[in-house]
């Protein structure tokens, strides 16, 4: 399975990438680590006319900086860098942990945080972590930079608020060291989650993986926790308002059941009785 033919642009800087996007418009697709894009291209589910490779851009698009009460992460930072960063482990352990359970080590060496978020897969781990943390994403386009709240970023299945002429440059999460947990349930090693639940700050932030067409914030659970509910009471609302996908791994009822069970476990592990 070889991708369909495309033209290739190697961007040496964010400005070069933006210029290529401006020139080629909808025909162009950005590629960072390529670990979401290349499989889709190989199945020919995606056939971009032009691939703009941003994978070799250095500088402020890479790295983790703790800046007061905000952690700023360059969009091209790889999963394995998040996993092993002592700065991140100290300032935002949920994100460091979630990065360590993406795919397998070989995938984590190549895949990038920005690439995973821009891909906007409801079954991916990292979008849920950013949602539970109440993070934001910085997009750079022809008109400059704008900051998009994670809760406004995921707009549909594999669709995001990122415009075709924008490049994701930075991800921001608050320093968050309160009780956290990530429950990922699957049957095969290295598979996507059938359902997963991320909890930050003792239950203030709760998000769901693979419970709809986008990564979801479990607002009903968050509200119950804020109202003083127990973990079991709050977790009973985990599937409220969701429309889970149905596939060989499970139907909607099964996924709803998983969401409730995993949410209770995650809230307990995050310190909520």
């Amino acid at each position, binding site marked *: 399975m070889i991708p369909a033919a495309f*033209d290739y642009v190697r961007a040496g800087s964010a400005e070069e990438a933006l210029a290529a996007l401006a020139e080629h418009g909808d025909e162009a697709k950005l590629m960072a680590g390529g670990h979401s894009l290349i499989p889709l291209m190989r199945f020919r589910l995606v056939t971009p006319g032009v691939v703009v490779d941003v994978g070799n851009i250095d500088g402020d698009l890479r790295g983790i900086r703790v800046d007061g009460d905000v952690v700023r992460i360059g969009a091209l930072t790889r999963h394995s860098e998040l996993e092993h960063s002592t700065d991140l482990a100290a300032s935002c352990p949920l994100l460091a942990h979630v990065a360590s359970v993406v795919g397998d080590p070989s*995938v984590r060496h190549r895949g990038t945080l920005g690439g995973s978020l821009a891909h906007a897969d409801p079954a991916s781990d990292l979008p849920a972590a950013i949602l539970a943390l109440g993070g934001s994403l910085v997009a750079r386009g022809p008109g400059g930079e704008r900051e998009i709240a994670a809760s406004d970023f995921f707009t549909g299945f594999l669709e995001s608020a990122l415009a075709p002429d924008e490049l994701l440059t930075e991800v921001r999460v608050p320093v968050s060291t309160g009780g956290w947990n990530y429950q990922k349930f699957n049957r095969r090693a290295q598979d996507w989650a059938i359902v997963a639940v991320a909890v930050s700050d003792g239950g203030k932030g709760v998000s769901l993986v693979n419970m709809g067409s986008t990564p979801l914030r479990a607002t009903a659970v968050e509200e119950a926790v804020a109202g003083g509910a127990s973990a079991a009471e709050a977790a009973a609302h985990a599937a409220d308002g969701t429309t889970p996908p149905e596939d060989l791994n499970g139907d909607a009822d099964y996924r709803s059941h998983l969401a409730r069970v995993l949410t209770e476990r995650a809230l307990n592990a995050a310190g909520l009785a």
Partner: protein
Amino acid sequence: MSAGAVRVRLSVNGESHEIEVEPRTLLVHALRDSIGLTGTNVGCDTSSCGACTILVDGRSAKSCTMLAVQAEGSEIVTIEGLAATSDGDGLHPMQEAFHECHGLQCGYCTPGMILASVSLVDEYPDLDDKKVREGLEGNLCRCTGYHNIVRAVLTAAGKEA
């Protein structure tokens, strides 16, 4: 110039290469067909099985899920060049351990399994049986049941007598 050839410079097993590839050429095919190193196998072709695992700048990567153009400026090690990265004239210690522990049967997964294991031992200093099994989850062996593979990795890592 749709599908026009792109020039890629990379180091493979310590040797510099300059190849011309279509942008859509997968790295595994460039290694096998352009450079002639057929020790890297193509397995599932869907980035699940790890048979095509190589080292890119010292870390494992699945060469069926990289475009050759992405390897520009990279240092690549394939199974053919692994032994030369270690001290001494013989096999790399990981190859030696797979041999000693009989960590293979048909051998198809072995090049990828060994390179993933070299990367794993380098990346995770506190390996135990469970961590090796988790760390090799992206490399499938359909013969051995993994027992001897895990033993080989722990032996090479100095974690098991």
